């Protein structure tokens, strides 16, 4: 079974500063994908960034970047120049598909990020 652990239930950051959200995962599969999703108060789940496990280069999407440490099974999210609109619950997720009906998508419990003005 795979697990995803987010050890920070809540975090806060001042507007324009940088914040890093932590995530560790565990899976026995060699082919997997990692994601960060954002869930604002509207409840809509929005994909922030994704990382294929076979890629060594860390993914980047504008102000969002990840630090993917495959050996340590760590997948942290860095948000630069934080904006008020970044206030949301952030979920780390691991997706594994090894063929047939073996589809597994596991989410962490989330980190509530508050950006203060």
């Amino acid at each position, binding site marked *: 079974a795979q697990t*995803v652990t987010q050890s920070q239930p809540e975090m806060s950051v001042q507007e324009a500063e940088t914040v890093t959200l932590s995530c560790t995962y565990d899976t026995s599969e060699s082919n997997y994908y990692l994601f960060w999703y954002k869930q604002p108060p509207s409840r*809509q*789940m929005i*994909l922030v960034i994704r990382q294929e496990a076979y890629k060594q280069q860390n993914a980047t999407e504008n102000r969002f970047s990840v630090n993917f440490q495959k050996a340590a099974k760590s997948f942290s999210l860095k948000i630069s120049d934080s904006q008020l609109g970044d206030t949301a619950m952030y*979920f780390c997720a691991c997706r594994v598909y090894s063929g047939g009906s073996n*589809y*597994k*998508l*596991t989410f962490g*419990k989330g980190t509530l990020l508050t950006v203060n003005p």
Partner: protein
Amino acid sequence: NAGVTQTPKFRILKIGQSMTLQCTQDMNHNYMYWYRQDPGMGLKLIYYSVGAGITDKGEVPNGYNVSRSTTEDFPLRLELAAPSQTSVYFCASSYDRENEQYFGPGTRLTVT
């Protein structure tokens, strides 16, 4: 494109009642998914479908049924509702297993 739409947005059920949560996507996606999100938790996969006529169980399928007769629609059926099914339900779709999942706005269900 409307994306992924879900109805209803809110529903209160009595124990033992049944209902169907509707999900429709207009992006011609092959894959569709149903998740539940309990308070303070991440999403858990209930069922998924890789195309019309093909469905499979996720992590927490007990108490639910699905069907996929068309590419667009993926309804989730709750039979004999129980308080443990109180949750927020999300439908999602993706073009294939590699691509991004697009989520609907969710249905908040309370069983009392």
